[in-house]
């Protein structure tokens, strides 16, 4: 969810450092008092972050620093197909040295694009989600905003390989791709596939 922005105030860490500096400059509070203040600040930080979690997130705000949000997404690019290969491999592959802390969840998402422009074009992918089809729960894969550059009249299939160290939670899954087309955010889904488990 690369370009989602939480609408909250100054990050709590900065407030915390600033207040500590102020306390030091005044030099009228003992260390024990500082500890007490730090405790309350920590509680405040926790509450602030907890509240931020419940805040809605977004969106196409005007000032953005993420490179994807400043990249325009051309009209005239057609998404032809989306497909997904889902694998979970708790057993190590045969033929290699066993390693610890390896990825066990794999999602390969294939996106077929058609640039109908007679000029170069950018296709901006906002997010790729893998969701269980039975309850729509989000699987533990992370994707970032990505831009696919296309040449004039280029047909292209691009692959996105997502991994995790926790595998899949349930049964059949699908890929949900949110992409930008002009000022719109559009969505396309793959068909549901079973997870090939090892």
């Amino acid at each position, binding site marked *: 969810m690369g370009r989602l922005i939480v609408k909250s105030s100054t990050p709590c860490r900065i407030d915390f450092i600033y207040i500590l500096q102020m306390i030091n400059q005044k030099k009228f509070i003992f260390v024990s008092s500082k500890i007490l203040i730090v405790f309350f600040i920590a509680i405040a930080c926790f509450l602030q972050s907890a509240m931020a979690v419940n805040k809605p997130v977004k*969106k196409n705000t*005007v000032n953005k620093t993420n490179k994807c949000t400043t990249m325009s997404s051309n009209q005239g690019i057609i998404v032809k197909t989306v497909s997904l290969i889902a694998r979970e491999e708790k057993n190590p592959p045969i033929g290699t040295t066993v390693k610890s802390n390896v990825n066990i969840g794999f999602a390969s998402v294939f996106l077929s694009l058609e640039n109908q422009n007679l000029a170069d074009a950018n296709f901006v992918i906002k997010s790729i989600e893998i969701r269980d089809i039975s309850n729509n729960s989000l699987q533990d894969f992370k994707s970032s905003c990505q831009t696919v550059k296309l*040449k*004039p009249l280029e047909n292209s299939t691009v692959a996105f390989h997502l991994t995790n160290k926790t595998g899949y939670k349930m049964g059949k899954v699908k890929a949900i791709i949110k992409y930008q087309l002009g*000022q719109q*955010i559009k969505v396309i889904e793959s068909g549901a596939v079973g997870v090939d488990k090892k």
Partner: protein
Amino acid sequence: MPIDNAGNTLGTARGLTLTSNSQTFGDWVGTLDTQDFYRFNLSNRSALNLAVDTLTANADVQLIQDRNNNGAIDSGEVITTSARTGTSAESIVRNLDAGRYFIRVYNSANSETNYNLKVFATPDLAGDTTATARNITIGSQTTTYSDWVSSLDTNDYYRFTLNESRNLALTLTNLSADADVQVLRLNSDNTTTSIGSSTNGSSASETININNLSAGNYFVQVYRYSGDTSYKLNLSAAPQDFTGNTVVTARDIIPSSTTIREFVGSGDTNDYFRFVLGDNSNLAVTVNGLTANANLQILRLNGNGSTTVVGSSTNAGNAAENVNLTSLTAGRYLVRVYQGSGDTSFNLSVTSNYAPSDWAGRNIADTGVLTKVRSLSADGSLSRSDMIDIFRDAKDGNTVDVNELIDLRNIVANAVGFNMADHVRVLSNKVVNGDVANAKYQGATLGNLYAGSTGTQMENLIGKWFLGSDRPATSRTYSYNSAPLFKDGVSITDIKQGAVGDCYYLATLASIAQEKPSYISDMFTDNGDNTYTVRFFNNGVADYVTVDKYLPGYANASQELWVGLAEKAYAQLAESGWSRGAGQTNSYASIEGGWMDYVIRQVTGLSATSSNVTSMTKQQLIDLVNSNKILTAGFVNGAGYGVVDSHAYTVQSYNSTTGLFRLNNPWGTTHAEVTWEQLNSLQAYIISSNS
């Protein structure tokens, strides 16, 4: 005393009829007329928005509900008051249930002032859930729905049904705070799926366009992000457009006596039709049946993608448009019908004396490509070498232009008409329509074919897919191997694993060689030029790569090529992304480590099952051994009894006398023979084909 149109009590209050459009009522309050009352009724729950401004002295305003209808303002009947100081405008925004209400404008501290009361009320007609959604009907013309969302009404749902595929256009306008919108599809299990959303910030309008939205039930959800706002939701669902709106997306037609019925108008201002003409062609184009003004152009598509107008007709009103042209040169042409004013269907007729009997003549514009295709397909088909020849011809002038690119894609799309072998069709498609693996060639950037590709890029694409010249990366040196593909048939003993950690792959090939050798022989197509095209299956669909006869030093040392080429082809396949997963490149390193069931599916297209031997019976395993199913064993839980850990074997046979299962090692040596109990002790994974 100035004007006094409003009564001075609840009983004499001036009656207002509120709408969603703002109305202004001018009046005056002062020492002789200290208060003005207005009365209005709401038939639906609504968002009231009122202001009192243009003050020259202080005045305030109250919103009142006479709940007991006694004509007096009792305690608790003032809903809210706006009492700013001085000449500041007063404002009240409030969500109100249906009922009768009063507005009281009153002076303060003996002040005297004219004022304007501005007021509107937007009814909340949309339900707050999908179950209570407002049912609406969407047609070709835009329909506008006024409503509002606020902290007390965070969601508005509208439900509509499409009986046929339509192009949905949605805008959310007139926002004063941040609201968003999404379109939801109602699934058969009554769940919903978001199929489009617009989430612009602040009070910016929202837009969603979804073309070819299929028949079904849908919801529009307007939801509050921050602040309270009225809005206008504008919706239309225009008929599906079967004709492209640009030069590139033009609808391919063949000039004939057939009449095409289409539409241009708002939202579909251009329709393009594309066709090919030969030299000295005459062309007659007619557009009639108009109910509004539409115009006509004939354009020639140039190789660089630009167009040249060669004819036009721009009659006024509903008059038909006609263009007649003679002696046109060979090439690709377009008919453009475009909106003059209003919306209109039309009948299009395109006829020409150019009427070739062959597919190539009707669909290929580039003269060189057309000549080549006609010549090479004279025998009824286009072979691998024919396609290579055509691809090379298309890069004349060291570039592949727009017309040549369209021609090549047309040829591949017509593979059946050219009796093209499947592997030729698939590999040609990778050249002209792209593939994940096109990103690299011999380690350098390559890219998919596009309008303007260089001759070098085309040649590299040919080399990559047809000539096997994009060999997998390895630290070893490639050398030409003149051995035959097969020697004395296909045998399990042909397998001798080298330094690559692909035992899972070779153990599976060994079992296929033993149980289903025809799958191995069918895997290879000898191209007759020291290259082989090798077949794999991606989810049951054949996919191909081409390899040459150069093998690295550590490739299979057998005196026949098939194992080494199968290994090399599998390494090349890795960069296509589907066979090996994340981050794989065209290299031998990419095929290190894996599972045999994937290989069974990828090499044979058969389904496969993986089970731990501890969940099987001995007889089940014996039955598998005695069948002709592909059968392998993988060990990842430790070594023992002559079995190597993290290694794959072919389960070759069972000796009922000794009770030993023979495990063929893909190394070609150090095979193992183990009992049922020993297999259980090692917790072997038994992986077999299902047929």
